[in-house]
């Protein structure tokens, strides 16, 4: 008898937790705001609070964009969000525009892709790339150097191609995106037929690069070599090798420095910090999120009389960033670490 009340209360809580609508604003803040800005004005990601975007794209476009992401272009896929959560996020985005939604029934746009190709080279390639690969870097400029206010998205991206439809591209070209470098090409003097021709051409884009294919790069997360020298000699070798590779030596410190009172650190674990500022500057422009690699470092460790030299493997970690451009830098950096480790232990 007395048990009944708590059980009812419990059932009630379970039921209400299960039916409570997901909160779009807080989901957006948790999953999207870091890149697209707290109010959709852009950041690492392009702006979303744009009337001329929100008034022409369907929920289906937004849903697919969130689910699939843009492989290799920073925008992650969100496979784990539920449909209800994604719908809640979409309602939140919709709240940024009170312009009427103008979605036409999905009907293929007719046009001549060959003529579209000529027009694309003339009017679009300078921003979206020769083959639709998008601008360098992504998102909106902050005080890092960028060529443009907002980086033009990749049109050959499998995520974009899967989410978009002919009509959306057509409307984007007709209306433009106010407040961004993407202007209305009707106003720029193209005819509706020209625009349709371009739409047909853009729909032929596909990217040959399959970012998933590179996940198997068969190196471990940590690069390690054994050094035939003493710890002290190895550290000296490392300093030499570093400056030989055009990197600037910054400092050495025990791994445990700052975690224990001075003097109590394990002195047989030495980190060597170094940097190539030009390389760093370029990499930060491609992706500001690379702090975990900074500054470059090699660690020399002595255990039971054996000295090892080790570093992270940036190529292995590259996949965390979903950024094709950055991947090239990670590949370069892995090569440099391998050469350094070889030289140090030679």
């Amino acid at each position, binding site marked *: 008898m007395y048990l009944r009340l708590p059980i009812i209360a419990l059932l009630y809580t379970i039921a209400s937790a299960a039916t409570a609508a997901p909160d779009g604003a807080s989901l957006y803040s948790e999953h999207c705001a870091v890149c697209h800005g707290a109010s959709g004005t852009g950041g690492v990601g392009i702006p979303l609070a744009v009337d001329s975007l929100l008034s022409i794209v369907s929920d289906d476009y937004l849903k697919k964009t969130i689910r699939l992401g843009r492989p290799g272009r920073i925008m992650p896929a969100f496979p784990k969000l539920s449909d209800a959560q994604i719908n809640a996020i979409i309602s939140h985005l919709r709240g940024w525009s009170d312009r009427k939604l103008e979605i036409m029934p999905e009907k293929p746009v007719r046009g001549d892709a060959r003529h579209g190709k000529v027009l694309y080279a003339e009017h679009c390639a300078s921003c979206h790339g020769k083959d639709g690969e998008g601008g360098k870097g992504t998102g909106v400029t902050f*005080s890092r150097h960028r060529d443009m206010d907002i980086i033009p998205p990749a049109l050959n991206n499998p995520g974009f191609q899967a989410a978009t439809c002919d009509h959306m591209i057509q409307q984007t070209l007709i209306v433009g995106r106010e407040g961004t470098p993407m202007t209305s090409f009707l106003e720029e003097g193209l005819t509706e037929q020209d625009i349709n021709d371009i739409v047909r051409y853009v729909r032929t884009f596909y990217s040959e690069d399959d970012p998933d294919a590179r996940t198997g790069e068969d190196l*471990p*997360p940590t690069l390690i070599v054994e050094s035939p020298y003493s710890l002290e000699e190895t550290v000296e070798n490392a300093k030499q090798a570093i400056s030989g590779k055009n990197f600037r030596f910054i400092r050495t410190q025990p*791994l*445990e420095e700052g*975690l224990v009172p001075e003097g109590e650190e*394990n002195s047989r674990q030495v980190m060597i910090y170094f940097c190539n500022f030009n390389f760093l500057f370029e990499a930060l422009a491609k992706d500001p999120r690379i702090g975990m690699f900074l500054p470059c470092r090699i660690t020399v460790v002595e255990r039971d009389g054996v000295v090892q030299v080790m570093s992270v493997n940036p190529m292995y970690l590259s996949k965390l960033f979903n950024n094709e451009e950055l991947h090239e830098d990670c590949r370069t950096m892995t090569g440099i670490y391998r050469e350094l480790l070889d030289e140090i232990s030679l």
Partner: protein
Amino acid sequence: MTRCRHLFIILALTLAFLTPVAAEDLLAARSTQSFPEAMLMLQESIREHGYTVSRVQRVDIGLTNMGYQTDKYRVVFFGKIDEVRELSNRHPEMIPYLPMNISVIAEGDQTILITSNPAIYKTLFSKVKNKFLFDHWENDIRSIFNDIREAE
């Protein structure tokens, strides 16, 4: 002698079968606070979660000194000595990943915090028995980020 035959000892051979990049590999938060406020708050929250801040790397200062223009950019390193010792003794291949760090990036009058999700170590370093530790780190970082997201 070819380079391949060189001294690479492949320690963690397990090549994790990787699902397509999911957002959760990186943990990130945007704070509406200015950079100095967010930096203070981050370090305070790290300490409240029982960690020691071991170093703040001023990436921006290094760049500026070399003549490059950049917004504020710091990397905060932190850890617990017992955990760092235990892992570095038992699993030296994890040493280059220690201690943990969070990047703090100014974006206009707001601030972005970002780090890799420690949960990825469960597949990266599959030999580590104490997987619970990485879950624990993930929870702590999520909780630290929540502190900062919620602060106005």
